[in-house]
């Protein structure tokens, strides 16, 4: 169908904004990767960072620290958010309390990360020091959990909401208990959405800097346990750049971060597509 003339202008504007979004993404990715990738090699990934006061070195201990804080935050926020979403969607009625909880999650998601970091510092690092080891990847991970929680809670809730009521009725109608209906029909059907929520939270956790700055410590040493202070990649990037003006290590770390996030996104996307298609029988 030919486009009418008066529709041409808005159409062109929309088209341009779409292109611009893509263009900005490509520019950032290309810039970081072009500057960072040449530095990334096996040695960079597996060597320890340089000691205090020197530039260069690898990022091995920071990768481990990132995995640790992210793992802690997911291990804490994942079950709580999925469980909370199931509770809210399946066991409570749409009422005042539920709206309050949803609003609270929204506000929590909107709190500036440095403020969350401050809370993490006061609560986990200072107040709970005997249990968290003070500055530690555990404190950092727990603080990050606060940021992951609202994201995956809301996404999981939305995913559960899209499961048709007929499937629940079908299951209950066959004499399944509510719990059986949830575990055998509702959650498996909503799983792609739930996983997407967790991945979004994971991305947030990997990329977070400010909250980590105040809670994880920042020690360059390889951590031995969750009670040790550590320096995740984002913090390392910030540090080498601000303290030593070591732009090449920064670019290299940034490239690894970006590749990691891209890889996680694409792999889960692919897995979830396969899962969804299997459900749909394609």
């Amino acid at each position, binding site marked *: 169908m030919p486009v009418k003339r008066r529709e041409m202008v808005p159409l062109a504007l929309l088209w341009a904004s779409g292109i611009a979004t893509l263009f900005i993404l490509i520019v950032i990715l290309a810039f970081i990767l072009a500057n960072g990738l040449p530095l990334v090699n096996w040695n960079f990934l597996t060597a320890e960072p340089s000691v205090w006061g020197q530039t260069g070195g690898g990022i091995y201990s920071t990768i481990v620290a990132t995995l640790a804080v992210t793992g802690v935050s997911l291990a804490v926020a994942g079950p709580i958010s999925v469980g909370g979403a199931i509770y809210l969607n399946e066991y409570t*009625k749409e009422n005042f309390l539920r709206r309050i909880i949803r609003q609270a999650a929204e506000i929590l998601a909107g709190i500036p990360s440095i403020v969350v970091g401050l809370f993490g510092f006061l609560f986990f690092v200072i107040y709970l020091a005997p249990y968290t080891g003070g500055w530690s990847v555990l404190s950092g991970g727990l603080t990050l959990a606060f940021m992951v929680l609202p994201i995956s809670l809301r996404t999981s809730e939305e995913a559960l909401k899209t499961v*048709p009521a*007929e*499937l*629940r*009725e*079908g*299951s*209950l*109608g*066959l*004499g*399944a*208990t509510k719990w*059986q209906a949830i575990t*055998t*029909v509702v959650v*498996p*059907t909503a799983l792609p959405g739930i996983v997407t929520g967790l991945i979004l939270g994971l991305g947030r956790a990997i990329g977070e800097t400010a909250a980590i700055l105040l809670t994880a410590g920042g020690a360059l040493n390889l951590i031995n346990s969750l009670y040790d202070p550590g320096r995740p990649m984002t913090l390392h990037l910030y540090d080498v750049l601000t303290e030593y003006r070591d732009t090449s290590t920064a670019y290299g770390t940034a490239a690894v971060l970006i590749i990691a996030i891209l890889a996680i996104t694409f792999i889960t996307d692919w897995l979830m597509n396969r899962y969804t298609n*299997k*459900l*749909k*029988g*394609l």
Partner: protein
Amino acid sequence: MDDNVEISVKNLSLWFGKFQALKNISIAIPKNEVTALIGPSGCGKSTFIKTLDRMNDLVDNVRITGEVIYKGRNILDDDTDVVQLRKEIGMVFQKPNPFPKSIYDNVAYGPRVHGIKDRKALNDIVEGSLRKAALWDEVSDRLNESALRLSGGQQQRLCIARLLAVEPNVLLMDEPASALDPIATSKIEDLLYELKREYTIIIVTHNMQQAARVATHTAFFLLGELIEYASTIDLFERPRDKRTEDYVTGKFG
């Protein structure tokens, strides 16, 4: 109670909040027959059958009075084992609602939630149920395919097979053929005719010809009231109530 009566409903009233959806319904559902419920949208017929397997429990703000006697007990009592009740009184819905699982897993779903794990026993149940639902010949070579790949009519028969797998006594069907084409519809109707030998069937339908074809008894609901309940031929050939006459001749409103 009369041996030929499966479910006896006495003075059943139901409110959603302040709205009274069912008004003092009394009806005896005959055993091993097809009973059709007809009436305009919103007349309470779907609400009525949902009461029979306590599906209205899922809705907020429901208040029910009266009795629904099944196997000598009032199933509306608080101490009714709802899970067991729903096993015996199963429901097929308007839109086919197969689970996003394989054909096999759909049919095996009910037996599995009731604790049957033995593979051989499950195989037998799945085959038997699919045969009873006249679907076995069409799917026997692709039991592991997703149920969502079946056509609408096949999906509906799968849902019936899924229900038969838990060995119910009563089948409640809420407009089971309204989303299907005429050929798929006639297959479902033929199936009902076969199934009534073993099961008591209550079917809600908007399609009066369907009611006339499949049911031995027909009940006409209007605005939450049971207006007339008679043998199907009497209801369609010589209704006693003017409102039934107006509805079945299509001169309603």
